[in-house]
């Protein structure tokens, strides 16, 4: 679908020639987010710098019935920032300012394109940090984090993005600018902030975000424990949680991932281990010391091959660098992969690990694991060669089998990456027809014309038009999600 001349002229008049990308070469680079399996080239990319410009873009598009797709840093893993129906992609990369730092009230207001880590960098010297830390935090935008309700290693203790968003300003699908929430601890009326976080652009475009900032903890201790296999490591995770300890982060990597990471950042994890656990404890010094000893003892009881503690900030930073760059480092072992984001109850980790090994063997595919073990949130990277006929299909089959296994154990289809194009079809596994229909109607309140990031998040068929009919039976009531 090409844009009409009047839409193009309108956008160019609004943003100037440097604010509108129309060349095929330029648009091509916007056809995918990190998950390049999904492609959808926009008809134009616009780069606004203010709420007013975003609003004007949405109005132009609404008038011409053109889809609008938001994009932050393009690090999503669900095909969310792609334009499968064409239209205008709104890049937030020129809206990167910190609008207000209000440390007295423990919060900051930022533009959506601001890189997550840059917020912490701006306040760390003064003893503060922004807690949600997706592994992409050195590049992903806070707007993107809000859109997908992103998690991260430290969300085990600190909660996910939605727990840190106090207020939002948003241009919704009608072209109106609405503000919800705010600095005050409680707002009368509906919790619309909570409703909007995780909307993946289907309600509209977030243009300002007020987030909570936290004090840096007094002490941090980061330990590395290695195990013969994922199963033993998983048992240690269950034991730590069962002992009543909530680490700041509890991350697991398997041997394939250890190899890739060691190649990328130097030998940070022990070679030859089947799995490593990265365990971080933070809080008051005395508590951290005591917990560290207990955690080490639990790991040894569970047949840890080795338990070491980072001696200084440099060693700690290196352990985390390996973890945070893992998904990129996998480029050293494969050119293409699928990434699962399913969740199981923590207690079921050892069981799902055994099933995963079986699925991997059955389909003769390499699974590289790096995940938030403490949350039970799996992230196997299912490696395949896109040049070998049939291998993608095998990987997709393995991916589906693993997802169903997680659901059967009482899990959820997604932990933190979001739904996008990748998991919309899986939602009926988890939600009843009435639930999905209600979500669909809610979406239409914000986006009456169905132009805001269409074909994402909710399963729909172009022919349906109205409402939604799930294809599969729903889960029994009380299933853990």
């Amino acid at each position, binding site marked *: 679908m090409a844009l009409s001349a009047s839409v193009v002229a309108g956008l160019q008049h609004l943003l100037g020639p440097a604010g509108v*990308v129309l*060349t*095929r*070469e*330029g648009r*091509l*680079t*916007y056809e*995918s*987010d*990190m*998950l*390049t399996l999904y492609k959808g080239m926009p008809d134009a*990319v616009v*780069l606004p710098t203010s709420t007013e410009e975003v609003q004007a873009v949405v109005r132009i598009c609404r008038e011409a019935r053109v889809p609008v797709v938001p994009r932050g*840093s*393009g*690090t999503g893993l669900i095909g969310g920032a792609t334009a499968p129906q064409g239209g205008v992609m709104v*890049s937030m*990369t*020129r809206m*990167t300012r910190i609008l207000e730092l209000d440390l007295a009230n423990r919060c900051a207001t930022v533009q959506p*394109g601001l*890189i997550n880590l840059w917020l912490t960098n701006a306040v760390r010297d003064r003893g503060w940090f922004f807690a949600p830390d997706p592994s*992409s935090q*050195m*590049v*992903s935008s806070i707007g993107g984090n809000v859109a997908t309700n992103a998690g991260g290693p430290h969300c085990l203790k600190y909660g996910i993005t939605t727990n840190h968003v106090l207020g939002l300003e948003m241009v919704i699908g009608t072209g109106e600018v609405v503000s919800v929430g705010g600095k005050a601890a409680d707002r009368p009326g509906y919790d619309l902030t909570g409703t909007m976080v995780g909307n993946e652009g289907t309600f509209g475009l977030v243009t300002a975000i007020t987030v909570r900032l936290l004090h840096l903890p007094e002490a941090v201790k980061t330990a590395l424990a290695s195990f013969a296999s994922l199963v033993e490591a998983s048992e240690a995770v269950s034991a730590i949680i069962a002992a009543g300890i909530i680490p700041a982060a509890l991350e697991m990597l398997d041997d394939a991932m250890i190899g890739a*990471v060691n*190649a*990328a*950042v130097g030998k940070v994890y022990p070679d030859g281990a089947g799995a490593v656990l990265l365990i971080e404890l933070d809080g008051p010094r005395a508590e951290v010391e005591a917990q560290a000893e207990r955690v080490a003892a639990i790991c040894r009881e569970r047949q840890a091959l080795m338990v070491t503690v980072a001696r200084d900030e440099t060693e700690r930073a290196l352990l985390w660098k390996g973890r945070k*760059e*893992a*998904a*990129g*480092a*996998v*480029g*050293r072992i494969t*050119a293409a*992969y699928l990434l699962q984001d399913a969740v199981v109850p923590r207690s079921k980790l050892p069981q799902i690990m055994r099933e995963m090994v079986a699925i991997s063997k059955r389909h003769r595919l390499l699974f590289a694991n790096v995940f938030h073990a403490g949350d039970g949130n799996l992230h196997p990277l299912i490696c395949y060669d896109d040049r070998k006929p049939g291998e993608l299909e095998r990987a997709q089959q393995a991916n589906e089998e693993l997802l169903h296994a997680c659901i059967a154990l009482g899990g959820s289809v997604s932990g933190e990456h979001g739904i996008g194009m990748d998991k919309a079809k899986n939602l009926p596994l988890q939600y009843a027809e009435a639930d999905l229909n209600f979500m669909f109607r809610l979406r239409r309140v914000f986006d009456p014309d169905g132009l805001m990031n269409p074909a994402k998040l909710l399963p729909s068929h172009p022919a349906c038009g109205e409402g939604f009919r799930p294809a599969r039976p729903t889960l029994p009531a009380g299933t853990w999600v």
Partner: protein
Amino acid sequence: MATGTDRLAAPATLDDIRSCVHCGICLPACPTYRALGEEMDSPRGRIYLMRAVAEGRLDVTETYTHHLDLCLGCRACETACPAGVPFGSLLETARAEIERGGRRPLRRRLLEAFIFGVFPHPHRLAIVLGLLRRYRRWGLQALVRRSGLLRRIPPLAAMDALLHDIPRTDGAPPEFLAARGRALGRVALLTGCVQRHLFADVNHDTMRLLALAGWDVVAPREQGCCGALELHGGRLDAFRARARALAATLPSDVDWIVTNAAGCGSALRDYGHWVDEDATRRVAARSRDVTELLVEADLPLGSLPLTVTYHDPCHLAHGQRVRTAPRALLGRIPDLAVVPLADSDLCCGSAGVYNVLEPEMADRLLALKIARIVETGARTVVTGNPGCLMQIARGARARGLDLELVHPVTLLARAMRWEDR
């Protein structure tokens, strides 16, 4: 013309392209992405475009060429990349392909013809610099500046401003300087093209310091250009010829080949990749930045009460992964205070001849760099690459700032108590 293997679609090159998993960790490290916020002017976007060309989804168009030409080749993305994508060599291959296609505007082609016809030729460069000296002495410069010609031809303006202070003489360094005391071994100095003519004192100081550090130093008089500019411009056959010639000129029995210009050192280290022969591989393996050798020595350094900041040349920090040696050396000078520079490894816009070819983007990056330098409060900026030295000095001059730009070697020589050894 480039040879048959210099194609993005060549199997080994395509494998390198495919090792990019589109994670985007390179984005914040990229100067042009930082300036524009556009995917096609980021490393990830450029690799995506190269892949589209390699896989036949995209032709080598003028727009494609523009996005690759706007890349500084600073290789900050390589430092950031967890997958180890060799962006620098991919860019050079892509540019070789563009060279064959000839899709650049006439203005740029003329400018390139001039640059590549002069800079890699020390003798021709000497002639041009001689003319420039006269141009200045006879008052022609003032005339040209008043004429408004510079405003209409930005690359001319960039060159005019860059070559503000042309030293009176070239002053070639001695061909040999013996180690003081018992020699640790023998090293050869690459004297460089721009370095030789515009920063002759840096070569002199390099030799004196190396000799003091215990090395016999040779500086062969007839050495040619290392070919760095041609490599980065995708003129791979010309580059290969220079690499072979230089490898044949430099003595094969030295322990190290020392460079003091980051751009040259980085090119030398890539010799083995582009010319897989014994002599070129040897040069690549033995190439070291001068700071890497000096940091191992116990130099008698005296007090130098000065506040400085350090800017990482891209081709030292990213191209050669040398970051700690220069800083460690500065840290050893008594009474010298080194204030950290924010974004110290973000390109200043010099990037070889980039500031002449893409003056607009170069100026944006220069403005960013100057702003960061001003934040430090330091009046002296230390950096080990002639391009950065000239570019930042030009930026300071244009803003009326009193900044001194020095090579680390210059500062060390100044702090040195020569008589103590």
